């Protein structure tokens, strides 16, 4: 938000050294008009061939997923590889994976805003969009997992005619329903409210009637009045203040789905912080992947600079190491607890039939990010791209390892079994990626990827003060 973005310039306008030391957040000192033009131009032009190619792939994946889900619902969840012992597998893995991805957006827009990290401006909008789409993908899986998605509304408490009958308010699964729907709603409000001034810019420069009408409807008559801006800034701060603890609560509550059970490998107090760190890590991995593609496809290299990518790489390194530390802590606690079931669960993870999944997770999440200690590697685009993809893979496997390895060895060896996904499950996962990328590609096509007004605040404030230092401080 520009209030804080512009503050340091105001507090020390006499210190030109400060301007010299930091590389600019936006390259090349564009004028305010240039910013609207450059961000909005791709929305007027015909999409590039690259965009069409990506869109075709995404829609195909989405259709494959839709076909798989239709078949599964028509036939029953017997079409999945689930069995008596492994009752949660691919679907819940995918659910936790997508919810995790959904954490970076709000973290960037809320927590980094409260910490006054100016570099977040360029990437906040697309990260928030990513959050919303990821939470939508996440929400699909529990609904499908129920087997009868048309009764999904049963998870909501509402007065009914079945005698006194309520949902179980003491169940973490129900907490999840509230946490995720609240998170989705607040993220959506935050994203939309943040976009109103930009929609007004688009409305005012739109040539076609349909575009002008649509942008006009959604920009709610915004006219740039400072009385409105003043309240707007307060609203952004309030929403950020509310969203920041919300981000932490969501994945903590998701982790309680596991932690409040008595399954070895799940029953641990480490889970909430461990899940939150993992969520931020995976979210930043996905933001990195998307932004590397977006800045290329939409020609936004000036706004999403190496500085932003490097800052995100540092967060990847930090959170990856935190996650790795949690993996090791889990092992230590299993040994230190003296509980043979706990010990077995962890030894089995690392050396049992799913050891390949465990070591994939370890390599992608703990070892690979260590490359980012090197400045040369973390400023190399190909390296960042590969690392971000591996982080996504690693974090998917983390959830797979947690869920499947803990479940496939029951307390009773007679119920031990193995789980392997069917083609239907794989197609459903593919479909969720299809949905995610379809929505994201539509977003970069029709809405401004970069918050123009925030960038203007950063650029305008700085330019104006360096040019008119006397005037501003008369």
């Amino acid at each position: 938000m520009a209030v804080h973005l512009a503050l340091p310039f105001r507090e020390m306008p006499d210190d030109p050294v400060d301007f010299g030391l930091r590389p600019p957040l936006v390259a090349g000192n564009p004028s305010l008009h240039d910013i609207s033009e450059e961000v909005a131009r791709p929305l007027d032009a015909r999409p590039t061939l690259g965009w069409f190619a990506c869109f075709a792939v995404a829609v195909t994946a989405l259709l494959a997923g839709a076909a798989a889900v239709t078949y599964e619902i028509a036939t029953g969840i017997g079409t999945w590889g689930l069995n008596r012992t492994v009752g949660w597998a691919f679907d819940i893995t995918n659910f936790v994976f997508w919810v995790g991805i959904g954490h970076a957006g709000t973290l960037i827009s809320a927590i980094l805003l409260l910490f006054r990290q100016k570099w977040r401006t360029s990437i906040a909008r697309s990260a928030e969009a990513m959050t919303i789409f990821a939470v939508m993908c996440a929400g699909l899986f529990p609904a499908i997992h129920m087997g009868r998605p048309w009764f999904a509304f049963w998870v909501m408490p509402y007065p009914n005619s079945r005698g006194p009958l309520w949902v179980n308010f003491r169940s973490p699964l129900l907490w999840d329903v509230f946490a995720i729907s609240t998170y989705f709603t607040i993220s959506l409000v935050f994203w939309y409210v943040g976009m109103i001034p930009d929609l007004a810019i688009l409305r005012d420069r739109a040539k076609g009637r349909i575009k002008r009408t649509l942008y006009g409807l959604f920009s709610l008559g915004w006219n740039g009045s400072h009385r409105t801006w003043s309240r707007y800034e307060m609203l952004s701060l309030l929403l950020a203040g509310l969203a920041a603890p919300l981000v932490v609560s969501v994945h903590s509550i998701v982790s309680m789905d596991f932690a409040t059970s008595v399954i070895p490998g799940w029953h641990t107090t480490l889970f909430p912080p461990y899940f939150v760190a993992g969520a931020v890590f995976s979210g930043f991995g996905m933001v990195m992947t998307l932004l590397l593609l977006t800045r290329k496809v939409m020609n936004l290299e000036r706004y999403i600079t190496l500085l932003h990518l490097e800052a995100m790489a540092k967060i990847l390194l930090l959170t990856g190491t935190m996650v790795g530390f949690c993996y090791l802590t889990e092992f230590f606690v299993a040994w230190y607890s003296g509980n043979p079931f706990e010990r077995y669960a962890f030894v089995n993870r690392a050396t049992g039939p799913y050891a390949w999944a465990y070591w994939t997770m370890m390599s992608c999440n703990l070892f690979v990010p260590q490359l980012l200690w090197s400045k040369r590697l973390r400023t190399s685009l190909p390296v960042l791209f590969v690392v971000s993809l591996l982080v996504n893979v690693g974090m998917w496997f983390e959830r797979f390892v947690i869920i499947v390895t803990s479940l496939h060895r029951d307390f009773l060896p007679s119920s031990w079994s193995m789980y392997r996904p069917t083609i239907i499950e794989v197609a459903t996962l593919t479909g969720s990626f299809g949905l995610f990328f379809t929505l994201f590609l539509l977003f970069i096509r029709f809405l401004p990827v970069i918050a123009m007004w925030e960038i203007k605040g950063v650029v305008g404030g700085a330019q104006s003060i360096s040019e008119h230092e006397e005037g501003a401080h008369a």
Partner: protein
Amino acid sequence: MLKERVLGCFADEASLLAAVRFARERGFAIDDVYAPYPIHALDEAMGLRRTRLPYVTLLGGLAGMIAAIALQVWGAVIDWPLDVGGKPANSALAFLPITFELTVLLAGLSSAGAFLWRSRLHPTAPVRHLAPGVTDDTFVLVLDPAGAHAEAARHLLVETGAQHVRIDGGQS
């Protein structure tokens, strides 16, 4: 209907701010300022009262909290005390997560709703364009001459370096 107003367009933040301060010193009432981005120093320069939005957030949050506690206590303790593993029906700690979520939900929705309502922003709101490019790169200061002669306000705006000055409404 039209109140007489005098508009001055500026090309950047600093000259706008200087003009706002100057106009207030000269005792002109500032109708509003239009800018492509929020300018922090303007709140003080225009003498705006601090928004009361945080109180709405507080009230919304409290309403959410009370509603969540009432819902859970009614559902799980009074109306349908289900025995889950022999735990007491009124296990208040287990009600915390949902209470937190509903507090945040109602606080957020009521703040956003109050903001839109107070700022009169809605899908069919008419767009008043005071000057071309006001959402793009133009800063507009609107003075309300109220009693003083509009010509004096126009003169002041020209003096402070406005690139374009216009008198709206009034008798004309």
